[in-house]
């Protein structure tokens, strides 16, 4: 009897695991950040037949950066500027829309956008540009609670998709170009009460505070605007932080400026820092480290290890031990001319005279980075890490910083470099060595994330509006479709009525692709 029960329990667990793959329940598909779908109905042999099943269009001209959530036959999305919708998964028809009435004095550096919602049980969670976190009834869109996370008037906003853990909602903030002080928050899913806050810029008396000159910590930024990952066994949240403020003047904040441009490992229960790793100390190039950290369990240098991999805006690809934060690999995956290498302790050897001057200094990566907020993916089957890589230099110049709460605070700027044609690529990186295994060139630098699948495919999108599928082993292109507008979102995959679909947003449209 006991044996039977155990068998039954295992069957249930397997069924649950299998079921989890059918849906897309959190920003990256699951907590690992791998953005890998185990669905394989769409594969190398039939992907050429993929076509549009339905489209849904927003009414807003801001960039549509959403990663949809799929659960229970419904797709939950956010729309710019701070709206949410539930779509019927069979037709794309909206079941409800939530329209946020925004004040007209919100502050955002880079467009009125939102990257997605979180779902926990029957509740949808949305962060808003006026820096609130709200809870909506998943069945009706009715608002259940509305919590002010920060004061938008001082430059805070929220564009990041929340991360729902079993008993808390994790939410980051934006405002790195407004001299805010960054943080990561956890909220009670039922009431909206704040459970903990981790300041990404340490205050007086806290470790790391000494890495900021004078009062510069008060405007140190280190925003948390891309959704992180979570290891339930270690109970650690992995979350990237943004540039130090002001962006282009490193002298008024002399020191490493912790925890800007870092990966944080935080105890999910308390929000306490377990370890951190800083990619770009005293950054002067706006190289936010706001990337989805990809958690990988694999044999590494002869033993099983829990790793975390990050392809960074600064042009380097990093592999760390995610239990301890130990630095393992740091190699360029995109063109960079600011550091000769990352030393054995994980610190970059910076090339002199690469910082902004009043006249301007040309630099690779440029201000948009070797990659950006778009999601990478990792296939456990190929053992490869896929990233949308950008090659686009900019000239960085420096100006006098003047802080005025709620106004733009960057101390300089950047320009394109005449005569240099930017380009892009999808690159497959080997986390064992940091080497580039293959690359598929793109016409221009991309803003779309990638998705890998067990059908042996990598899906991505281009700035010109192509959606495409590559062979995940070789990078060979197998299918493409012109959507008509720039892809600025991350693809997902799910199963409905026994059939696999791939969906992503392009321009104002959310498009679901299927085989039949």
């Amino acid at each position, binding site marked *: 009897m006991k044996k039977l029960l155990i068998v039954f329990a295992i069957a249930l667990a397997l069924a649950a695991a299998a079921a989890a793959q059918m849906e897309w329940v959190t920003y990256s598909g699951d907590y690992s950040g791998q953005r890998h779908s185990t669905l394989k109905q769409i594969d190398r042999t039939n992907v050429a037949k993929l076509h549009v099943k339905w489209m849904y269009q927003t009414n807003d001209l801001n960039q549509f950066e959403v990663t949809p959530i799929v659960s229970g036959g419904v797709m939950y999305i956010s729309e710019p500027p701070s709206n949410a919708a539930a779509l*019927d998964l*069979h*037709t794309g*028809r909206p*079941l409800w829309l939530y329209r946020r*009435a925004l004040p007209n004095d919100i502050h955002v550096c880079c467009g009125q956008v939102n990257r997605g919602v979180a779902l926990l049980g029957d509740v949808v969670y949305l962060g808003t540009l006026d820096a609130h976190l709200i809870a909506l*009834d998943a069945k009706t869109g009715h*608002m*259940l609670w509305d919590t002010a996370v920060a004061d938008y008037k001082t430059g805070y906003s929220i564009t990041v998709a929340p991360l729902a853990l079993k008993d808390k909602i994790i939410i980051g903030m934006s405002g790195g170009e407004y001299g805010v002080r960054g943080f990561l928050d956890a909220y009670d899913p039922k009431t909206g009460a704040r459970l903990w806050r981790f300041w990404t810029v340490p205050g007086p008396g806290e470790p790391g505070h000494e890495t900021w000159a004078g009062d510069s910590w008060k405007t140190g930024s280190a925003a948390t605007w891309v959704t992180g990952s979570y290891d339930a066994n270690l109970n650690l949240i992995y979350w990237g932080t943004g540039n130090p403020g002001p962006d282009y003047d490193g002298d008024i904040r002399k020191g490493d400026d912790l925890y800007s441009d870092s990966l944080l490992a935080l105890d999910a229960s308390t929000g306490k820092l377990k370890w951190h790793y800083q990619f770009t100390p005293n950054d002067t190039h706006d190289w936010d480290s706001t990337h989805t950290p990809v958690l990988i369990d694999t044999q590494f240098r002869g033993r099983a290890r829990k790793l975390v991999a990050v392809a960074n805006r600064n042009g380097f690809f990093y592999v760390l031990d995610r239990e301890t934060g130990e630095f393992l690999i740091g190699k360029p995956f995109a063109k960079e001319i600011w550091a000769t290498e990352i030393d054995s302790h994980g610190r970059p050897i910076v090339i002199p005279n690469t910082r902004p001057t009043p006249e301007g200094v040309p630099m690779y990566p440029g201000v948009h980075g070797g990659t950006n907020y778009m999601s990478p993916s990792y296939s456990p089957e190929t053992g490869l890490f896929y990233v949308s890589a950008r090659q686009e230099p900019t000239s960085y110049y420096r100006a006098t910083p003047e802080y005025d709460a709620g106004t733009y605070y960057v101390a300089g700027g950047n320009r394109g470099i005449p005569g240099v044609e930017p380009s892009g690529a999808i690159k497959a990186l080997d986390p064992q060595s940091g080497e580039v295994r293959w690359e598929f060139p793109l016409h221009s630098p991309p803003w779309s994330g990638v998705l890998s699948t067990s059908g042996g495919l990598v899906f991505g999108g281009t700035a010109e509006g192509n959606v495409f599928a590559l062979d995940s082993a070789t990078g060979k292109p197998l299918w493409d479709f012109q959507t008509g507008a720039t892809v600025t979102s991350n693809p997902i995959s799910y199963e409905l009525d026994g059939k696999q679909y791939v969906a992503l947003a392009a321009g104002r449209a959310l498009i679901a692709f299927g085989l039949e």
Partner: protein
Amino acid sequence: MRYRATILALLAPCAFAATTGEALFHQHCAPCHGANGEGGRGPKLARLKLPRAPDDATLGSLIEQGIPGTEMPVTRMTDAERAEVIAYVRSLGRAASAQVAQAGDPKKGELLFWGKGGCGQCHTVGPRGGRTGPDLTDIGVKRGPANLRQSVLDPEAETPDNFAQYRKVIYMPDNYLRVRVVTADGKQITGARVDEDTFTIQIRDDGSHIYSFRKDQLKELHEDWGKSPMPSFRNKFAASELDDLVAYLSSLTGAQ
């Protein structure tokens, strides 16, 4: 002479309309906001401070552009006409400010709503309540007392009986159109329509389950326009209780 008469004839209608804010109000505003701005399907305007229109310029742009995400439409008129309407709306507010508050005790009404009336089984207010009927969280802003009273006494009188388009951003009665379907395999499903196009329909049943059907695959599809699953409360509440309930509903402004 003939020339002058023509000019007068052309001017006369304009001159009449432009000088009559009251007439324009009755034509454009009163059908929803009430003959004296007391509120009906639309919010009460006979108040000194309008929450969405603290000044005349804002009120003017609300008339000109409507309020996206609400039932307030765009209303076309000349600048002069709009100024007349604004002046008239403000005069209603001044007149009303002298009057005394309405009958009914909202505290008692709240107890009736969640208790004797059982309203919360179907309606949501803030974080509480059911999903079957329209969300009432800010119904006091959207509807006037007379309309609310009518809805409680005779729910179907306020239920649309025509084919208005489903409005996705507004919790309107026609978004709660009752639909009955029989599927190809004979299963019967009843619920509220949540969306519809030429070929498909989406329904939320009373257990909050969402269905999506292709219409050509349904055996039967009935859209019960003008029908409401809500019973009349005419015989359930005493007159004073009705006052209390309406006072409570009127107090629901969505403020947290």
